[in-house]
């Protein structure tokens, strides 16, 4: 076996293996699929934040020629979407956009017309549509079972926080808020269901992972998991927005069963915003205790999340607790979190999970702490930063950790020391740091499996269930297989995205793709190579372990790769195996699951410095430059790593500066890509990438993750840079022109009163 540093494929700037299809318009996305007899489905949604359904009359819709099915709760009263939630509204609606009825028709025109013909009579009830109102003492109760509208709480102490705060020389508290934000996926939500055979539900849809969809749909429709097939060839982005099956998936299946025809449901541009499961309003209170010389003793975060009308995504409530332990060496950590019901669409998460928005506040708070101490924030982070070998209070172990090196690198490359505190007015510089788990194990079956077969022409087909939502996982899996087998990435054909064909893979969550699936693919390739070596070694008169595989050749270690009669081309070798007496068809298999009962085996780390300019007259912010240093383990494909960094810098600055669902009661005022702002070409900064490659002992070839680590850090760095430019911690994102102008004016007034 080649030593880890003697790599021929890993580490290359490898263009995407699916590039040709994607640039030429050949790539098939769900909406591009048209099945014979396919119907078009549409969903009728609640116009009210809270109401009693007095009656529903679907007769006129059913009578419209071309309408093949109309469903309401009466057709599927027991079909649950989640624990307490019927799929279609039962008696009451609890938020604007809630699914009330659905139609399937032969033509989109007819489906649209049919929606208009469904008559629903509502009795409107008082609603609570904001987090603040839901948390007010004496607020009306949204659900019987939830006093104070608290859906769930999570409380966790690590160490003795009270003692640690008491022993601190300085304790600082800050508050922060983040708004409702939407994932704005490139490919709008779409599902195509074929449930014409009651024993098999086929569903084409973009997803982050098939198993959760299979399990949810199977449970809802009384099927076994294997009776549900999810097909997800190309996925137009996910940004944490495609983790779980959403109501439209179930409704497409229901309509298909009723109409006995395949049914496609595709969200319209504004519907996407109404049905979304992005992040909800969130309020944070951070408290930190430090010693006079700048050592952090105690960290505390108290977070209230708007859950929406149902608590669907409880995981985001738990995640901050461990996260608070991953960056600094501290005596104690305290987390208090609660999920609050409101009459709004159930919430999930936006790009960066909970960590990005948390960081935009928490890192400003820590910056504030450093400044109170009279310390340079970069120095403050560095002084407290963990190192490899650290054992955290939450039980996490960090076998590799390049956090300090990341801080040093960004400080150096950004010219931090010459700039921090020395920039002209309204120019700002900010630093942020962060960590991310490379696959957080949240379920026992957090497994990835892989298979591959080698054809006698030397072409390898790799079967993997990890979806490629753009992050480039398929290409990296191909590179891993190629590296192990000693072939080129172009020799690998990827078959992915069909749960009937591909082996189990939990999916692209918690940055587990490279780490977990990568280890599975590596194992499968090693299995195949072992089989090949067993067959070939005797022909060369050596032991299997003496063979080297690389550059499409197999040879005896220590000799020349092309030594006559001591080596084969890969193709010759596989031909010998296949056409030999044994007739071996080489097929490898492998799987990986973390040996830990929970948590992660490896963590990525990063530090970024952002520089911004604020126009004090208009409040507009320009991000000038982002310097990003990340310890992602080994960069398996630096080209794709850069792409991940770009995308996260973009998305991170977007969330801090632009993105906000502006709410009017329970309605979104800006449900469009025009009014829900994301920056475009002109707004993008220069990005400098620095890869700090710690080689992780558990990751495939030492890799960790780059899927969501960077955005968490970007959000912190940009938030701090803007705060630095205006001279004040900013308690709310996005930092829009009007919010900044208000701060700037207030500071000018205060300065005028108190004198220079």
């Amino acid at each position: 076996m080649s030593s880890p540093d003697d790599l021929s494929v890993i580490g290359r700037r490898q263009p995407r293996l699916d590039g040709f299809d994607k640039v030429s318009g050949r790539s098939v996305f769900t909406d591009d699929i048209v099945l014979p007899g396919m119907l078009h489905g549409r969903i009728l949604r609640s116009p009210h934040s809270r109401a009693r359904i007095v009656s529903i009359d679907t007769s006129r819709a059913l009578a419209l020629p071309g309408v093949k099915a109309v469903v309401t709760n009466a057709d599927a009263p027991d079909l649950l979407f989640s624990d307490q939630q019927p799929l279609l509204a039962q008696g009451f609606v609890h938020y604007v956009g809630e699914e009330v009825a659905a139609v399937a028709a032969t033509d989109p025109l007819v489906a649209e017309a049919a929606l208009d013909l469904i008559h629903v009579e509502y009795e409107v009830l008082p609603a609570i549509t904001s987090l603040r109102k839901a948390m007010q003492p004496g607020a009306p109760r949204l659900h019987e079972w939830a006093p104070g509208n608290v859906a769930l709480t999570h409380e966790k102490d690590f160490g003795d926080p009270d003692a640690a705060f008491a022993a601190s020389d300085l304790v600082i508290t800050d508050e922060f808020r983040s708004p409702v934000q939407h994932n704005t996926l490139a490919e709008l939500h779409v599902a195509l269901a074929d449930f014409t055979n009651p024993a098999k539900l086929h569903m084409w849809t973009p997803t982050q992972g098939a198993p959760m969809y299979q399990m949810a749909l199977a449970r809802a429709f009384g099927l076994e998991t294997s009776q549900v097939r999810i097909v997800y060839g190309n996925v137009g982005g996910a940004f944490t927005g495609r983790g779980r099956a959403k109501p439209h998936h179930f409704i497409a299946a229901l309509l298909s069963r009723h109409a006995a025809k395949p049914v496609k449901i595709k969200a319209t541009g504004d519907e996407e915003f109404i049905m979304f499961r992005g992040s909800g309003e969130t309020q944070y209170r951070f408290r930190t205790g430090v010693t006079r010389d700048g050592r952090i003793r105690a960290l505390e975060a108290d977070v209230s999340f708007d859950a929406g009308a149902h608590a669907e995504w409880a995981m985001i409530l738990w995640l901050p607790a461990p996260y608070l332990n991953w960056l600094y060496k501290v005596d104690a950590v305290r987390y208090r979190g609660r999920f609050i019901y409101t009459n709004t669409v159930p919430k999930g998460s936006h790009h960066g999970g909970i960590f990005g928005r948390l960081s935009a506040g928490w890192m400003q708070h820590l910056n504030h702490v450093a400044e109170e101490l009279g310390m340079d924030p970069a120095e403050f982070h560095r002084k407290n930063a963990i190192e490899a070998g650290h054992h955290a209070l939450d039980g996490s172990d960090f076998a590799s950790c390049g956090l300090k090196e990341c801080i040093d690198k960004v400080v150096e490359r950004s010219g931090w020391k010459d700039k921090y505190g020395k920039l002209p007015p309204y120019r700002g510089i900010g630093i942020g740091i962060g960590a991310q788990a490379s696959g957080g194990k949240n379920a026992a079956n957090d497994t990835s499996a892989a298979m591959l077969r080698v054809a006698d022409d030397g072409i390898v087909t790799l079967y993997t269930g990890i979806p490629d939502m753009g992050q480039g996982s398929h290409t990296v899996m191909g590179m891993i297989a190629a590296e192990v087998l000693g072939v080129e990435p172009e020799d690998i054909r990827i078959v992915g995205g069909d749960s009937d064909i591909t082996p189990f893979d939990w999916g692209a969550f918690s940055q587990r793709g490279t780490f977990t699936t990568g280890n599975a693919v590596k194992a499968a390739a090693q299995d195949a190579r072992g089989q090949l070596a067993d067959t070939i070694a005797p022909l060369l008169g050596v032991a299997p372990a003496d063979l080297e595989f690389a550059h499409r050749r197999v040879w005896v270690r220590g000799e020349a790769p092309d030594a006559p009669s001591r080596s084969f081309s890969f193709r010759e070798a596989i031909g010998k195996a296949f056409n030999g007496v044994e007739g071996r068809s080489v097929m490898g298999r492998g799987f990986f699951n973390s040996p830990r009962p929970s948590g992660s085996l490896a963590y990525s780390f990063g530090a970024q410095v952002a520089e911004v300019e604020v126009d004090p007259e208009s409040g507009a912010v320009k991000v000038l430059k982002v310097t990003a240093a990340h310890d992602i383990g080994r960069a398996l494909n630096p080209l794709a790593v850069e792409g991940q960094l770009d995308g996260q810098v973009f998305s991170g600055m977007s969330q801090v500066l632009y993105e906000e669902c502006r709410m009017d009661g329970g309605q979104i005022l800006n449900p469009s890509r025009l009014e829900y702002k994301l920056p475009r070409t002109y707004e993008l900064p220069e990005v400098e990438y620095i890869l700090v490659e710690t080689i992780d002992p558990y990751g495939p070839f030492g890799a960790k993750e780059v899927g969501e680590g960077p955005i968490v850090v970007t959000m912190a760095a940009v938030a701090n840079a803007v705060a630095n430019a205006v001279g004040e911690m900013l308690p709310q994102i996005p930092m829009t022109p009007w919010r900044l102008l208000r701060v700037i004016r207030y500071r000018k007034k205060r300065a005028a009163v108190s004198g220079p």
Partner: protein
Amino acid sequence: MLLPEHDFIKPRSLAEGLAVLRDAPPGVRLLGGGTDVVFNMRCRLMTPDTVLSLRDIPELQGVDVLPDGSLRLGAATRLTDLVADPVLRERYPALVKAFRAVASRHVRNMATLGGNLCLDTRCWFTNQTKEWRDAKGPCLKTGKDVCHAIQGSPICVALNNADSPPALIAVDATVTLASHRGERTLPLRDFYREDGIRHTVLEPDEVLTEVTIPPTRDRLVFLKETARQGMDFSYGTIAIRADGNGARATRLHIVLGSLTTAPRDLSTAGERLVALGLGDDGIDAACATIRDALGPLTNLYSPAAYKRELARTLLRKAIVELREMPA
């Protein structure tokens, strides 16, 4: 959200088009580039019986220099063609800047001058899908006696969000409106009304055929403040035209866009600047008039307080740019 059914007509001459309008108003919707009409039809804000495309009418095309030195811009000329026009580029760089400020290049490759000048007013309680509006309940524009933007407002306060009107008003452009009844020409300033529903004086059977810009040697500045460059409606725009040079001017025409229902002239501010010059004192004095000149503002798309502040900022920046322009 497919388009509502309609009769699509594409006349080959102005006369043919005017005849259609004579016989079929008010259910006819003129289509320039369609970049706003198609959007509004998808949302069922417009459900015309007939759509009349202006794209193949030769009389409405092109940029011409008239004998007196005026420029005539055909109403169906695409914004992209105006941006590329050599005469406009040479004589009116600030006008070209305003045309180029509209939406994205993709939209400008389709959008016409007439469509931009006649662009319907916008409001985020109204410019939504039908389902959205039904959930909120109708408003003045969609059939009820309620304004969601300003409680109790008797008129629709939707915004005129088009980018080219302020600059064209500042250069005293006129527009020609034609119908089977004849033609009339009026200053673009008088084309707009302070009513979000009937926001122009265009009659249902009329077509805006051309814009005429009288010759001038005055300075012209245009600024747009927006969330995203290269693809966004404005938070606010300003156009200022002035004679003289440096900090001196005897005539100033200041027009603010996107903050109100019709482009707003800042005549008092102009007078202050003429009196005090374009120095910082003049600017401060002019800015002090803004609150009164703007009156009550909406929170549509951005908060009213920000809009007011932005008006001052635009004024200050535009005057600074103007006085620093090379003579």
